[in-house]
């Protein structure tokens, strides 16, 4: 069993976290100012899921990893220029908005449909990976809904470690409260695994992997099916960036003892 996982990773783009974001009112609800122009990255937790998927596949001598990605086609293409160099995968592209203001319920539907449509995908080998929450909507709901849509009831959220045990079962560590992990053992696929940071660093760029990936990515982008995703039934009454700037007192040239004394006094409140 362990050599035959079919791993599908759900992940899309989000604005580069170093960008300044400003909400505007668009025709279909709130949006980001200059959204189409913002540099974007693969959603960080989904990126960790992709790296873990590729690692798991490689370790088990099995190379089929799919990335199902919903976003504006042109921006997905840009994103793939960098992501494709990281690890081998096959892209399933869905052309639609990547807005954080869309509803998880509406996002889950085309993702699940796209997964069902992957040729040759075998349910008894299926592991559906994704991030435990996006950096845009930050809902932490989409993966569970995709799983439900696919009829998968073994689901694990905020996972940092997945180990394929000798008997083929999966041991998973899920984050819980107070800096602890819950340890679970699942008989095997199908399962949904929503990753936190996992244990792997971002792989270095590999141009060979990039070239190999891009051969299939470009046709996948051309064949991207439109996905009508929004926030039906939701009304945003207000979206704002609250005032965050504090009047910072920058303390220079103060003796260490005085700084420490100030800090201790402050801590004691």
């Amino acid at each position, binding site marked *: 069993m362990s050599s035959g996982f079919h791993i599908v990773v759900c992940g899309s783009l989000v604005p580069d*976290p*170093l960008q300044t*974001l400003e909400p505007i009112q668009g025709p279909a609800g709130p949006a980001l100012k200059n959204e189409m122009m913002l540099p974007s990255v693969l959603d960080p937790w989904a990126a960790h899921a992709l790296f873990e998927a590729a690692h798991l596949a490689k370790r088990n001598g099995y190379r089929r990893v799919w990335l199902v990605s919903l976003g504006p086609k042109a921006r997905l293409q840009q994103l793939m220029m960098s992501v494709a160099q990281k690890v081998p995968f096959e892209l399933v592209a869905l052309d639609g908005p990547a807005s*954080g*203001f869309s509803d*998880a*319920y509406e996002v*889950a539907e085309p993702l699940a449909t796209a997964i069902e449509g992957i040729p040759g995908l075998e349910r008894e080998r299926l592991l559906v990976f994704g991030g435990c929450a996006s*950096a845009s909507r*930050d*809902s*932490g*709901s*989409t993966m*569970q809904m995709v799983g439900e849509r696919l009829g998968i*009831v*073994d689901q*694990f*959220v905020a996972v940092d470690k997945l180990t394929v045990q000798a008997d083929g079962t999966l*041991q998973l560590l*899920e984050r*819980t409260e*107070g*800096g602890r*992990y*819950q*340890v*679970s*053992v*699942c*008989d095997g696929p199908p399962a949904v695994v929503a990753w*936190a*940071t996992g*244990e*792997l*660093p*971002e792989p270095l760029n590999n141009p060979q992997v990039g070239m190999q990936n891009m051969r299939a990515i470009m046709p996948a982008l051309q064949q991207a099916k439109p996905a009508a995703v929004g926030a039906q*039934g*939701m*009304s*945003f*009454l*207000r*979206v*704002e960036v*609250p005032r*965050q*700037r*504090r*009047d*910072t*007192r920058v303390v220079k040239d*103060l003796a*260490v*003892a005085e*700084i*420490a004394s100030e*800090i*201790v006094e402050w*801590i004691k409140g």
Partner: protein
Amino acid sequence: MEQILFLTHTEKDGALGKLALEALSGALKLTQELDGSTLTVGLVGGNVQPAAATIAGCGAGAFLGVTGEKFAVSRYVSDAAAFEALVRRREPSIVIAPATSRVSRALPGVAQRVGGRIDTHVTGLQVEGADLRIERWYYRQRMLAMLTREQRPWFMIIDGGTFEAWSGASGSAVVESVAVDLPALRTRVVGEQAATGGAATIRPDAGLLFVAGAGWTKKQSDGQAHIQEAEALILDFLRKSGASLGSSKSLVDQSGEGQEVLSFMTHLNQVGQTGSTPRHPRGLATCCHGEEPHVVGWRFIKERRAVNLDPNCGWAQGKADVLYVADAFQVMAKVNELLRGD
């Protein structure tokens, strides 16, 4: 008029946790402010009767319970089935639940099953006439939105710290047992483990968040890294102050950059874009540059101070109340000395 269902689970000791009692306050607020609304409490756990008794005086019209050994542990398949059964029994229009890891894992799937919609990380509930509005953050605490929904049932997971924990008279509560048809279980919960073998450094209820940035493990003015000294200073401070430890970067990012890592630091310490957004009244950042991906995790830290050698670091750009331009090794050694003297 809304039919409100407050859903939660018991903790290992059979009691209700603080997050649950806070969310219960939110549910009660809605029940009082939305004319003609009713409140039902739905509990899941090994034995929910003692927990029901502790909130018997909350004013709920009814108590429902799913109990049994299989529901004593936190597991998607059994939790989702239990919550679903409670929702189907009551057929509520509004479901309120606390942001525990157990609820957050299972409830979105339940919303999907019953054709509802869910909002997580809710940080405010507001009633205007007959309209219910919620507040939640988008783009990792960068934008605050107020929104409403037409769909029902509307599930809401309430973030910790949004309401005061409910407290009131205990009593006797009649809990109606709800049966659940569980599928064959393919997942076993085999235990729990601390994220590290060392000190427990994450304390959600601490008054202070102490962030140890990556700078602690970098070369200092003498050209050498002083990891052991850094570890001793930080652990000594955590012991004396009772603070909760946060990190600015993920462990995987640090190790990926070939950087040494503090031995007691875990994945779960990370605060920010790919980490947590803790709620402590005060936060002290040390050897941390205050970059935006980290600082988004400070959204709910009210008073913020930082110690950094760079007077132009991110904290100086309006992100902290006070920035001490100083060597954190020296400052924290002196802080520990002063705390020791108490």
